């Protein structure tokens, strides 16, 4: 198994302790709820998308483990100011990183989000990291719910 310090890197612990963009977003025009019914993790992602399809602001509320909360926090920092199209690329790349389909050392746009690479070694925790990204995807696609289970599970597992 991955060394613990590799999994719980300082940046993840920091975002868990002090989540960025935490709280409901005033003037949001996109919103989706994501939950993992198996463990109770749940987040709501809010976004304001302008006429040029740019995510001008983004926020989240909810609760869960350190992995899911840090993933949500770092995601909001990353996608703020990006176009919806660029965000969709990030969503796909992040999912691929967590499911072992993307090499962190190869070409991608994830930047320091690769700190989550260690989670891919723990199949039972992958859903934690991906949950907020599912919810962001649902929000910008204007669906209201995402889930790690059943018909709303984009990973299909």
């Amino acid at each position, binding site marked *: 198994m991955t060394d613990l310090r590799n999994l719980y890197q300082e940046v993840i612990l920091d975002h868990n302790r002090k989540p960025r963009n935490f709280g409901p977003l005033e003037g949001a025009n996109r919103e989706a709820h994501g939950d993992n019914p198996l463990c109770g993790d749940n987040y709501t992602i809010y976004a304001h998308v302008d006429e040029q399809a740019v995510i001008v602001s983004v926020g989240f509320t909810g609760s*869960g483990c350190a*992995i899911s909360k840090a993933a949500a926090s770092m995601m909001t920092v990353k996608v703020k100011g990006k176009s919806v199209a660029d965000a969709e690329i990030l969503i796909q790349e992040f999912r691929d990183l967590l499911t072992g389909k993307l090499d962190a050392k190869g070409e991608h746009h994830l930047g320091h989000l690769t700190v989550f690479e260690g989670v891919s070694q723990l199949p039972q925790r992958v859903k934690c990291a991906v949950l907020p990204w599912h919810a962001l995807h649902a929000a910008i696609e204007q669906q209201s719910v995402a889930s790690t289970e059943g018909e709303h599970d984009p990973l299909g597992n």
Partner: protein
Amino acid sequence: MLTETSRAPERSWEEIRRDFPILQQSINKHSLVYLDSAASSQIPQAVIDRIVWYHSAEHSNVHRGVHTLSQRATNAYEATREKVARHLNAAFSHECIFVRGTTEGINLVAHGYGRKHFKAGDEVIVSALEHHANIVPWQIVCDEVGAKLRVIPMNDAGELDMQAYEALLNERTRLVAVNHVSNALGTINPVAEIIRLAHEKGAVVLIDGAQAVPHMAVDVQALDADFYVFSGHKIYAPTGIGVLYAKTALLEQMQPYQGGGDMIASVSFEKTTYNALPYRFEAGTPSIASGVALGAALDYINAIGLERIARWEAELLAHATEALQGVPGVRLIGTARHKASVLSFELEGVHPHDVGTILDNQGVAIRAGHHCAQPVMNRLGVAATARASFAFYNNFDDIRALVAALYTVKEIFDA
């Protein structure tokens, strides 16, 4: 049940632990510390050997063939039914129905008894401490017939409010379904009193004994339980086998749950007549090897002695409770006066799943989550807990390893 005098010379707990081959391994370079027996217990070599022998020398289908193997398989499987009946002190072995596990046993009663006897306006009582398996089947049947599901509340310690229970009981109450020991918190419920009070109002009672049968002697006649259910895989046998005990008079009023082979006396397209008890409720080929193994598991624990097991497990629980209370930031969830084998807790500032992952990295296996008891979690205002659960093969070193691993969690999280 074996008596004190007929028991073999007492073996040490250390020696007994060595009966479990799975516990001899390392996980993540640490000796395995298995504290998740409430989810599923491990299997001793004697039971593993029994499965191997069954498949090496005795396997065929049961209750069918005239050939020797079929007779051997039937004898081995039916011998377990006799052992179960003795273990629970059932009046008749035909009152012990083989099922896949506790969940199937409860569903059998909900559908076979509830669907037939509950009517619109009737009431079914469950408790705030129940596993989803003792809530959802009743919800399904209540919705179907228009009956009402009512809930015995509990206090902050995780004990049922018996006064509120008495107030809930009335002439519309048809059935009360409660667990003997809570899987989420370890509370031992006063089931004898719960049954007595229900019977005064003419209601029948189902006891979910999944967490009780492995840890204490259960006498269904002394309890006067109408239905009592448990799972093999929590009592040192494999998955796929469990038992529903039910009084003969109730079984005779019940509708078969599943139709098929083995449960019939004769079949024609015009009319089918059902087989005698217990086979009427056992359609299809059962999990024969697991059933045979359950018999071996009961022999195994009875050779050690349930009273001795209960004393040792109480000592482990008391020791672990004290040790965990000494870790700053740990809060115990569920502090009932009477508890068995389960210690639910949270560590301030750290989600139970992170606790679980870090403990696993140190070789310590616990359960983290809602333990299939979301109403319990909601009532206590937590999303999830970490849960250490004990069996007689655990020891004080396991508890030391748990505490040491919790300090690693605190160090990483600076909690």
